[in-house]
């Protein structure tokens, strides 16, 4: 087994284990901090797929943005609200059935979709161009966002603008009349 493969399996197992622990852990703060490990090892998986830009963007967005936001939300919410979330009793209850069904359904959907896709024989994978390790991916991404994917790009920016205006409106001080 080469060093790359070893590193790949290391990060893959780290992603899975930490993601499982994020869900299972009783201590909420620790599970948020573990989410950080999940994100980071996921970014490593993106690096193995030669998608370095996506890996770095994921770290910027999730670590610098989402995770900090989650921590802030956690630290600023009151203790009684969280104690209900933190002390969930173990063991199976009838009320858990719905959750189990949804999870099982999702798993079935994912597995059947992956097996139906037949990834190895897809035409765009067989005949497409491959990128090498030293290619400058951001040039390609930049050119494609400004030409082929311009409309989705603009739609996303308008959407973000709407979110910003909404946030500004919500946090604005009410004028007393």
């Amino acid at each position, binding site marked *: 087994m080469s060093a790359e493969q070893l590193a790949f399996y290391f990060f893959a197992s780290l992603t899975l284990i930490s993601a499982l622990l994020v869900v299972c852990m009783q201590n909420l703060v620790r599970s948020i901090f573990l989410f950080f490990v999940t994100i980071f090892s996921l970014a490593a998986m993106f690096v193995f797929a030669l998608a370095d830009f996506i890996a770095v963007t994921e770290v910027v967005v999730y670590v*610098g943005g989402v995770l900090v936001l989650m921590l802030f939300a956690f630290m600023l919410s009151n203790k009684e609200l969280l104690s209900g979330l933190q002390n969930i009793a173990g063991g199976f209850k009838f009320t858990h059935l719905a959750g189990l069904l949804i999870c099982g359904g999702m798993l079935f959907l994912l597995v059947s979709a992956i097996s139906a896709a037949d990834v190895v024989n897809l035409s765009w994978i067989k005949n497409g161009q491959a990128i090498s390790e030293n290619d400058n991916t951001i040039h390609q991404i930049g050119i494609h966002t400004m030409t082929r994917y311009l409309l989705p790009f603009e739609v996303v920016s308008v959407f973000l603008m709407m979110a910003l205006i909404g946030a500004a409106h919500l946090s604005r001080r009410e004028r007393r009349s």
Partner: protein
Amino acid sequence: MNFYLTYVLVATALFAFTALFTLFALYSERKISAFMQDRLGPMEVGKYGSLQAFADIIKMLQKEFIIPSSADKILFTLAPIVIFVSVYLGFAALPWAPGLSPSSLNLGLFYIFAILSMETIGILMAGWGSNNKYALLGAMRSVAQMVSYEIPAGIALISAVMISQTFNMQEVSIKQGILSDESILFLGVWEVSSIGGLLAWNIFQAPHLIIAYIIYFIASLAECNRAPFDIPEAESELVAGFHVEYSGLRFAFVFLAEYSMMFLVGMIGVILFLGGWNTFLPNIGSVKLSTWTTGMGWGIFWVLIKTLLVVAVQIWIRWTLPRLRVDQLMSFCWKVLTPLAFLCMLISGIWRLTMM
């Protein structure tokens, strides 16, 4: 297997450098502050107190690890490591001389920016893990400040990247000196590709980058939690902020991270705006000062000198200006720096299209 050995050697060298720099910065900060306040500073250990930093480190290594009994032990122990490693990883993409860069990433600057955002997580870990209200308050303040000041800093950096047209820090440096294969225009009019020196630096290629650099410098002070933006540590209100419970080697790591961060942000600014490893001496006719002073050793020398000067200015500012209030801090960031940074970015785009 040889290249694995090189990786380890490079990483060790960078770590040794951060440690040495911290010792040096510790001593110089004490001496500069003493000079500014008309004191002598450390004088007892060694000649002019020059061994004071080593004495401090030895004292710190001997201290006991104290974990508060109600602290979250795992988070408390891991936090200093996360804080330091996030800063230390940033050094991987910085070029030191022509052809000498630990890792010549195409995404260099973007990578550094992403890695530095990890530090906020480490600080929150420390603040929450200590289970101390001063630590938690300090961490919250620190994170609020770092997250907001990332925006003007990032946009000011982007306006320099728009002039250089690359995220690769090594290429950014090459494009500001005589080694560039593109033509360089001083203030957009005078061809200086073969003259080089000071005239080819980014801030003189496009003069609005001087404003962008000042914005970046101010924002980088806030990201290092240095005065006048040191409300997270505010000794007089919060004791010491997020690292109040740390002692011994763990505190040393927090400290190491703070000083390495100073060097790192200074060096990023130097590379993107002040010519990186390029000399400031221009070629004048047959006196080829710029050609003579470009090379491997010279590159390291120039980048070190420039960055140490920037660090000296950071220290100077710390001991000159009083601390800002929280609301002043936020309104300064959002109402002054961010719009100005956006303006710089706009001018950069126009400059790139029309003048270059």
